[in-house]
């Protein structure tokens, strides 16, 4: 039997909703695990990808420098990299802050926020700095496929992954792109 495909996943500026939706494929997860194995992923809590993996799935956009480092790490270690869900594809809800300056956002949260004591903008070498604008993934690295949806439905995940694993074009059919 051919060796299993290695798959890594992570969530950047996302809500983990896309990961939850992946788990919603329910018992089909067992079929999936017949042909793939997870490398770095919240599912097994591995922190780094060792060597190369076949497929990387990234949920969420880029809000800070750490997100950028993780994204670059994935790009370097994934043969195929997929932008998963609204936030990764377009920036999504977190990108609503792009209408304001970073100072306005931080003032609202840490200076003028209700109930804030000892008001100050956090500064610590351990905290990743925020980017001035939230960015979708494809603006920073090459992305091979986009899997849209908020979140992509379990069926969308299933269709996308099975088609891709079978070596076919994983584009979603119309019924999986309709949200009304």
């Amino acid at each position, binding site marked *: 039997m051919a060796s299993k495909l290695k798959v890594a996943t992570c969530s950047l500026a996302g809500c983990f909703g896309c990961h939850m939706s992946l788990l919603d494929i329910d018992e089909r997860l067992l079929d999936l695990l017949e042909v793939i194995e997870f490398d770095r992923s919240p599912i097994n809590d591995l922190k780094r990808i060792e060597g190369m993996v076949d497929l990387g799935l990234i949920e969420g956009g880029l809000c800070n420098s750490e997100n950028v480092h993780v994204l670059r790490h994935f790009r370097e270690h994934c043969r195929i990299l997929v932008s998963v869900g609204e936030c990764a594809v377009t920036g999504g809800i977190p990108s609503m802050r792009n209408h304001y300056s970073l100072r306005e956002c931080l003032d609202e949260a840490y200076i003028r926020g209700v109930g804030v004591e000892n008001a100050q903008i956090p500064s610590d070498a351990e905290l990743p700095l925020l980017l001035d604008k939230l960015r979708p993934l494809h603006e920073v690295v*090459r992305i091979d496929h986009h899997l849209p949806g908020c979140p992509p439905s379990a069926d969308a995940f299933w269709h996308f992954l099975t088609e891709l694993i079978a070596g076919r074009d994983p584009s979603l059919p119309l019924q999986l792109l309709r949200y009304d």
Partner: protein
Amino acid sequence: MPQATAAPVQEALLPILQRFDTDSQNLLQILVEIQHALHCVPPEAVDLVAAHLGATRAHVRGVVGFYSFLSDHYLGDYVIHLSDNVTDRMLGNRELAEYLCSRLGVKLGKVRADGRASVNFTSCTGMCDQGPAALVNGLAVTRLSRERIDRMVELITARTPVSAWPAEFFEVEDNFRRSDVLFRRPFEPGAAIQAAMLRGGDETLKDIQLEEAVDPASGTLWKRGADETLKELYRSDLRGRGGAGFKAAIKWETCRDTAGGERYVVCNADEGEPGTFKDRVLLHTYADMVFEGMTVCGYVVGSGLGILYIRQEYWYLKPHLEAVLARRREAGLLGGNILGTGFAFDIDLHWGAGAYICGMESAMIESIEGKRGKPRKRWPLPVVAGVRKCPTVVNNVETFAAAGMIALKGGAWFAAHGTMHSTGTKLFCVSGDCERPGIYEYPFGVSVREILRDCGGSEAQAVQVSGPSGTTITRSEFDRVLAYEDLSSVGTMMVFGPGRDMFEVVENFSHFFQHESCGLCTPCRVGTSLLVNLVDKVARGKGSPMDLDEIQKLSHIMKTTAHCGLGQTAPNHLLDSLLKFRPVWDARMMTTEFEPAFDLDEALEEARQLSGRDDAGAHL
């Protein structure tokens, strides 16, 4: 500062409103007059106009927001718009803009603090053969130079009204370099209408007075003349000169045969395709021919009203056109009793307000109805349900001019010129790197090489045929011919000499389409912006082959899914350039790996300042 306040607004507005009845179709024309009077459409004016027409304020504001030349804030005592076509850029308009701004002490796009003046760029103003061009308080200024700008600044500083500026600033030349059968001889006003009405009569009739020959009550000869003129139009095989090439006779007959009360004849003089200026010359020097063609059309299809929809950039032609119309009314060539036959037809002027999309016929009809110029759904066609949902013929200025001559001289005469599927002659607007830019009339079938030789542009490395939405052709293609069989065209020929960087051409064109997208459909509204982002990214040396693939992909989506011709043709110049001028793209490729369009470390700068950090972890 002469910022408009409520009382003067009302004072200025009343005479304008009095000239227009309360038909909501007048909205755009009223707003154009207000903009000219006040250099803005202030909120008080929006209220007054809304009340006058019984429209909502939101509707009025929506129309103000749509058109480039309407503004909700005061643009200054002197409003300067600099034409920004690629031909203006080739003549150095960017340096002149900088010079003008520094001399006036204004920032581009901002009104000077004392309200004296503002300077903005605008899309091509149709003066490509005598640029760099501008509009000052709506009037066309040609051949800008540092000297001319110095004098303009003096006049502005001295508060000299534009009406007292030197006439030479506003001189617009025809530059009609080559005429053929259509425009070679002077046109006798009335001759075409008379010929149309007498068509099909026996020879003896031609010797007697028209009013004796026609019986308005029974309309026998009247109808026969119209039918026979339509047959001549079929014989001529005249195709629309706006670029699409639809057969005029089919359009006219469909309009005539469609049931409906009123019928309209609309002449499309929006001429927004950058590099095009033939309609300007026709309306200046051959206005009688154009109006005559419209009148013949009214006679054939049974219409009583013609509308000349003319772009705002040609506002300087207003007194001239109104005088020609008045003269024609006096001569019995327009009005309630044309040539004494009882046939009634008149022509109204409708002014655009700065929107390329309004050259698209259904968007133009929306604009004629006083609304935002958004294209309608494809069906029903305007010929069946156009202005006020009535059957409407929309033809190009040049088409009407040709139709008038066909009525006069017959279809066979016309069809003897040109090629099998492209009869007659065509006007070409030549601009760019050539010795003799201007208007050239050739029979269809002329080669690009022949035109380049005649205009003194044989050295060219490329020619943009039919404007940014058309085709880019290179030296190896100069033997291609201008005809519907090969290169169909509205007549625009922008010539690029050997020293030109062809990448600057796509930069200009892609920004043009982004600005002019009407916003109705997503593929065009978003697509034109994404294309600009990618072109700008390549220009900054951040491009990679992946970005070029992305341009191809986006172009395909736009060509296949955009709502109208604007979005469908907007990527043409990029695809042509990638195919034919790949080296100018490759020269800007600094990497084969994908790179962000922006500087990531720069994106952390604000956060560094806010947190006071500058350690290694604070950089990317």
